[in-house]
């Protein structure tokens, strides 16, 4: 599928920029093996490159530049390096990396470029090459997002392991006066057929003194010891003892605690406040108002101001806040209502045809000549992240320097945000990133980080931990935007789909149309439509919005996969057969679809649910973050008309599966996250105030509502692709499609609710 409009634009801009930097642009991309500044080392420890240190006691310390927020990335990345190093798995420990440019996440940005996945033209290749080179040079482009970590680090971390292994072998050869090619590494030792053997720890110092080996060949897949195996998580042991350290577990000496109350209206601030009563309570140190802090450079929706209490304990701070009276300046959003926003989006679609992101053939003529057409309108609401660990950040500002403990997906932005608020140079800020109690995109934003820095400024050099209550976290999120989408399909006399026209409206996160990410998952489906037009009309509101696990795929998969299903039923065809016919030119998607049908016994009758209720299946297929997923949900309805999901079959092609155990975990977690949104998730605003405050009215799925999940990972030798978000998008349409088969009701808005 070509996207001509977009392609021309990018070719033009890439060409113009390229002409300016032509010399630079033909240099090879910056190497990622050796950092600008040597790694800091402990006594008895040496660094063999920017990714691994070896200690005399034989500990191998691997540098982690990505945030562990549950997705298992620390285990996955350690496997890459340890395997190529031939380290013993139990000698491996992990450590947070510095913010050097070698750790910049190239894949996250390059894969966000708006190209069709199947396209492979020179414009796309040039744009990707240029962007990759650019990202290499940008200080602080470190981040965990876009399901990109393994994709980005698959080669750099293996190369680092292989280089370190070659260095250790060279050291052994040097020590033994034997040819290096006769030596080999195994389980943390270098061995020679003569029986000579030395541990990595014994060889490390000598290895570090030799030149760093470059371009060392990587292992053939047949030689992998860890890569591709269902290795168990490294972080499990601490976390089941209660010894996992998260943001809220920072415990610097003399720690004080802060709690805040923000204006209930998004984007509002404090007009006046009276803290007399609060100030006299025990444990209270200071009560003050703070300004709104921005969440980032290009975010939609302003930060919100409020009042902070610094106290001796979190409870003292929270209790005191209840005794502060605040008069709010509700600001520009005081009349905002999510119901009106959604109605406005629908109205917009009455008059606007949107920015065209994909056009093929002549869809309007094809629709006119179609034997049959169907049309439908779909909607999704705002959604909160509701990470289990609420937003928090601990800052100590003392003697012109800051130390920050922040469970963040973007450590360099965090450093810069703190430096800006405190008016100090970024080099004066030290960032410590503990485990994240969930991220889902929320922890890429800086609003609470700026607040924490401003609060620390008031603490006379003492460290202060700012922790939001669940209520603050829920009502001051950066929400997945609401969307409305209209769809029309045309068919010929044989029931073949000939035309596909969709236009959605909603926030594109303040990006120019050309870089609009909110269309991903709609304009890049794998289906081949004879005539198609896929457009999006950007409409911004004052609601703070942000990236939410799987971003635009979270709603576009629901729209596309529901309407494909409607299309199939409207011409009396089986939904699997119907999709297969549109995927004749896309064997990768077809393979996943067919396996899902087989795994779920698609064509066999389905037994009733345990309580005797009738069950039906629904299927959805979606490509995102380089991976392809199909899910089949088995659904019934209880006596209260409540939708229940009993089993989900999930088939995945994610390229080479680095760790099948972690991949299954992420499919299970993604499905449950997506199902929470599909069945229950909805954030509404009235008078600019978010109505949901805690887990009673924004309720994630619970144990008794959780389906059984069976995941099948298809074998592949291709470059590894995204996992962390990939499980989310398909479940809502799979369930909605099953509900249609079961009840005849086509539910076109989320969360799914049956008419009673």
């Amino acid at each position, binding site marked *: 599928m070509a996207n001509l409009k977009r392609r021309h634009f990018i070719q033009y801009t890439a060409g113009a920029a390229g002409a300016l930097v032509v010399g630079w642009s033909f240099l090879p991309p910056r190497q990622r093996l050796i950092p600008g500044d040597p790694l800091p080392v402990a006594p008895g420890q040496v660094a063999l490159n920017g990714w691994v240190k070896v200690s005399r006691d034989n500990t191998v310390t691997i540098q982690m530049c990505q945030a*562990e*927020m*549950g*997705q*298992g990335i620390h285990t996955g990345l350690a496997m890459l390096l340890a395997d190529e190093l031939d380290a013993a798995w139990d000698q491996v420990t992990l450590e947070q990396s510095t913010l050097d440019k070698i750790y910049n996440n190239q894949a996250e940005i390059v894969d966000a470029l708006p190209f069709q996945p199947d396209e492979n033209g020179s414009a796309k290749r040039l744009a990707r090459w240029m962007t990759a080179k650019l990202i290499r040079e940008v200080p602080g482009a470190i981040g965990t997002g876009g399901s990109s970590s393994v994709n980005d680090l698959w080669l750099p971390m293996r190369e680092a392991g292989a280089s370190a292994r070659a260095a250790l072998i060279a050291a052994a050869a040097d020590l033994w006066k034997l040819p290096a090619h006769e030596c080999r590494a195994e389980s943390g030792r270098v061995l020679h057929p003569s029986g000579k053997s030395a541990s990595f720890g014994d060889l490390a110092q000598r290895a570090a003194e030799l030149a760093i080996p470059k371009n060392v060949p990587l292992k053939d897949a047949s030689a992998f010891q860890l890569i591709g195996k269902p290795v*168990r*998580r490294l*972080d*499990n042991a601490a*976390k*089941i*003892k*209660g*010894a*996992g*350290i*998260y943001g*809220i*577990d920072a*415990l610097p000496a003399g720690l004080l*605690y802060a709690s805040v109350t923000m204006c209930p209206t998004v984007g509002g601030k404090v007009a006046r406040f009276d803290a007399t009563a609060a100030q006299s309570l025990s444990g209270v140190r200071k009560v003050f108002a703070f300004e709104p802090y921005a969440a980032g450079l290009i975010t939609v929706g302003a930060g919100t101001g409020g009042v902070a209490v610094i106290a*001796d*304990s*979190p*409870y003292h701070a929270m209790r005191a806040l209840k005794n502060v009276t605040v008069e709010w300046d509700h600001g520009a959003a005081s009349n905002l209502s999510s119901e009106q926003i959604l109605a406005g989006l629908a109205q917009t679609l009455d008059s606007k045809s949107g920015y065209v992101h994909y056009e093929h053939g002549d869809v309007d003529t094809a629709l006119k000549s179609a034997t049959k057409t169907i049309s439908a309108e779909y909607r999704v609401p705002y959604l909160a992240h*509701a*990470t*289990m660990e*609420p937003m928090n950040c601990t800052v100590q500002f003392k003697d012109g320097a800051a130390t920050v403990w922040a469970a963040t997906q973007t450590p360099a932005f965090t450093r810069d945000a703190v430096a800006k608020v405190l008016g100090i140079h970024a080099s004066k800020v030290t960032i410590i990133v503990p*485990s*994240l*109690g*969930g*991220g*889902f995109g929320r922890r890429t934003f800086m609003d609470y980080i700026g607040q924490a820095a401003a609060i620390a400024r008031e603490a006379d050099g003492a460290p202060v931990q700012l*922790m939001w*209550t*669940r209520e603050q976290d829920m009502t001051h999120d950066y929400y997945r935007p609401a969307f409305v989408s209209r769809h029309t399909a045309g068919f010929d006399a044989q029931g073949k789909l000939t035309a596909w026209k969709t236009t959605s409206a909603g926030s594109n996160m303040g990006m120019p149309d050309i870089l609009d990410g909110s269309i991903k998952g709609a304009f890049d489906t794998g289906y081949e439509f004879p005539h198609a037009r896929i457009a999006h009309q950007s409409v911004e509101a004052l609601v703070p919005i942000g990236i939410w696990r799987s971003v635009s795929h979270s709603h576009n998969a629901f729209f596309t996969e529901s309407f494909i299903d409607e299309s199939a039923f409207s011409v009396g065809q089986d939904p699997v057969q119907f999709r297969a016919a549109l995927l004749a030119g896309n064997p990768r998607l077809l393979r996943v679809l067919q396996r899902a049908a087989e795994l779920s016994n698609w064509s066999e009758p389905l037994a009733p649910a345990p309580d005797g209720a009738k069950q039906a299946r629904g299927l959805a297929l979606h490509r995102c973050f380089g991976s392809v997923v199909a899910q089949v949900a088995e659904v019934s309805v209880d006596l209260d008309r409540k939708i229940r999901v009993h089993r989900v079959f999930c088939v995945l092609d994610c390229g080479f599966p680095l760790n099948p155990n972690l991949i*299954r*975990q992420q499919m*299970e*977690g*993604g499905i*449950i*996250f997506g199902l929470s949104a599909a069945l229950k998730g909805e954030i509404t605003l009235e008078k600019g105030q978010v109505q949901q405050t*805690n*887990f*009673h009215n924004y309720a*994630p*799925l*619970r*144990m*008794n509502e*959780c*389906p*059984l*999940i*069976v*995941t*099948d990972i298809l074998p592949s030798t291709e470059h590894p692709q995204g996992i962390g978000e990939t499980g989310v998008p398909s479940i809502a349409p799979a369930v909605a499609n099953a509900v249609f088969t079961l009840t005849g009701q086509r539910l076109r808005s989320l969360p799914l609710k049956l008419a009673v």
Partner: protein
Amino acid sequence: MTKVKINGQIVEVSAEPDTPLLWVLRSELKLIGTKYGCGMALCGSCTVHLDGAAARSCITPLSAIGEREVTTIEGLHGKEADALREAWTDIDVVQCGYCQPGQLMSASALLQKTMDPTDADVDAAMSGNICRCGTYPRIRAAIHAAARAMGPRLNPPLPLK
């Protein structure tokens, strides 16, 4: 000063009597394994045992503890706890892990009462513990595996591929 028995030891705490146990544990005693998630008994992140029964420490004021012994994740031990931790490791339950201290406290209280829990027992005991990462299928499988490891059982575990 209030005397409380926590993890086998009598400790004196200075927090005021209305202070929820959660904050006594976390900020005064530095027992930070117990987590805050909602403050309203909605999520189970703060679950501890009071005389072996699961309780939400976020809504339990210090004054309400009395003679009862508090057990936190740091002090959780014994046959059930060992079996659960082993199953949690074998099955690799944990994702972000933030909810897991609470999950393990609820699961061990369940196994202490019910040697051989059915799926309905698991639902009843565990549905107060939210896991935003979605580890429920593995928690269920791990509870069954732990129960099985501790002795003969009646209900077959759910298959987990």
